[in-house]
């Protein structure tokens, strides 16, 4: 990139934005980022974003939870201190297992849900005291913002954006 200038194009309609993203893509511009006030369906595909793998991580975290529950229950109830509780089998894990199913289920869900959400927060860089990075406050209200590196021919880019229905086009320094 020859300079750190970016063009911010504002839209006020999600369908116009979606068409604009496709047009800008077809004109071989690189879209740095799009900020929207709500999830616009199909935007990730139009921008060419890779699908997220968070669901896969949730599955793996769930397996971890299930393993933790199994190992913990085997250690606590069978190995470390077997007790005779209402005559329930206490010397064989597999025989005592039916009484442990609720714990196995809860810990699977606990691990899958919390670790997935923590992964999401880390990957999307969300945590308390984190400063917001949307360039304009209107993007959480009713404006959609497309950020494109200015490149060399700013004029051509601005004309193209105007044609796609942008309501406001700004040339600014990238923070």
């Amino acid at each position, binding site marked *: 990139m020859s300079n750190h200038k970016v063009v911010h194009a504002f839209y006020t309609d999600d369908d116009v934005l979606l068409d604009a993203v496709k047009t800008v893509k077809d004109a071989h511009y690189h879209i740095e980022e799009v900020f*929207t*006030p709500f999830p616009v369906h199909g935007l990730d595909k139009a921008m060419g974003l890779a699908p997220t793998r968070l669901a896969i991580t*949730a599955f793996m975290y769930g397996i971890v939870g299930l393993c933790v529950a199994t190992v913990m229950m085997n250690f606590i109830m069978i190995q470390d201190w077997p007790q005779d509780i209402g005559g329930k089998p206490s010397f064989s894990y597999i025989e005592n297992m039916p009484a*442990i199913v609720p714990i196995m289920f809860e810990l699977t*869900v606990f691990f899958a849900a919390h670790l997935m959400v923590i992964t*999401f927060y880390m990957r999307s860089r969300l945590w308390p005291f984190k400063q917001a990075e*949307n360039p304009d406050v209107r993007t959480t209200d009713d404006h959609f913002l497309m950020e494109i590196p200015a490149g060399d021919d700013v004029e051509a880019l601005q004309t193209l954006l105007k044609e796609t229905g942008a309501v406001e086009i700004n040339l600014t320094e990238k923070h």
Partner: protein
Amino acid sequence: MGSHYEAPIRTPLVTGNKSYHDVSVDVARPVEGRANKHWWIVFSISLAAFLWGVGCIIYTISTGIGTWGLNKTVGWSWDITNFVWWVGIGHAGTLISAVLLLFRQKWRMGINRSAEAMTIFAVVQAGLFPLIHMGRPWLGYWVLPIPNQFGSLWVNFNSPLLWDVFAISTYLSVSLVFWWTGLLPDFAMLRDRAVKPFQKKIYSLVSFGWSGRAKDWQRFEEVSLVLAGLATPLVLSVHTIVSFDFATSIIPGWHTTIFPPYFVAGAVFSGFAMVNTLLIIMRKVCNFEDYITMQHIELMNLVIMITGSIVGVAYITELFMAWYSGVEYEQYAFLNRATGPYAWAYWSMMTCNVFSPQFMWIKKLRRSIIFSFIISIVVNIGMWFERFVIIVTSLHRDYLPSSWTMFSPTFVDIGIFIGTIGFFFVLFLLYARTFPVIAQAEIKSILKSSGDKYKKTSESHE
């Protein structure tokens, strides 16, 4: 706008010609404005009830459980009745946001935020009761799997009471995370609108720096879907495990295999009723009639009607199984419920839970605000009686007729119950003044398909 097409016969879910900006303004209004007199009156009453409850809790803990009306026959009563009642109420939020998300029901979006808030506040009330009943709540951490100081004696994982600890803490924490993740974009909206520096600071703290990038939204939607998939079996497991507290015992009247589905249906029933109670007031006070429409209330009433009927079938199945089992203790337990000294409680339960929701078959009644409100209160009274009937009538006449007795609550029992209702409303009222009570980002995403403004334009283009 082909992608946003929705059949014209579907009732609009957002009325009043709203644009995206209107949604932001409407959702931010109760937060940015000042509380009115009604809010202060209700808040003061709730706070007084809460403080009274705190006093009764202090008295219980400092003197002992003997301050309650329990006796050697009825060893569990109002405490666990209130616990199960609150846990049941705490089921609707996740049901609405998770199950209705999986079924792609758009009408959830107007109500899910408040329903989830209600869930969390109700589970907090529920959690208080086992803690108080421990007698020494400062030893509450003994329920955690940590070896005691005398050696490696562990908690008993074969006990449904311990399963309950795991189920309820998982449920509370997962619901909280689900709720907060959904709140991030809406807190961000309030943050970006805020003009006062203090509000700006608070909302930027709680919005975790949400910026609304395309990638963030993609992850956000995936996380919401997976959390909904996890929360659905979770919510069913919670009341199932609560019912195990009774079902795995050998007390006639408790020892029944129908308990898990019956409790879950009852939980959905009472939870939706509580959502209706709260939202009918809230839509009026906060001017949300355009977002929580008659259609929403009608659909809630239909859920109440169906789950109420399921509960009714469960009651009758219970009676049939008691008779069909041929076990005379079981038969007596149910005969005593319906005709014994607690018959008044049994028939209150039957009237409130089985008969009253049947009025919802009539369209005019289920579309009446005042009638829906009354039924929602009646249902919650009925569901409290259901738990009271199950718990107290199964205990008060045990195997030994010489120990037959009745239960009468003391002012402490009543005070703690009223205190939790006060606490619940204190939390909900504070929430209503500081949180975005409608999931505005989600509402904006359905505005083109289900908002009346866009529905009208798409019809006129045909």
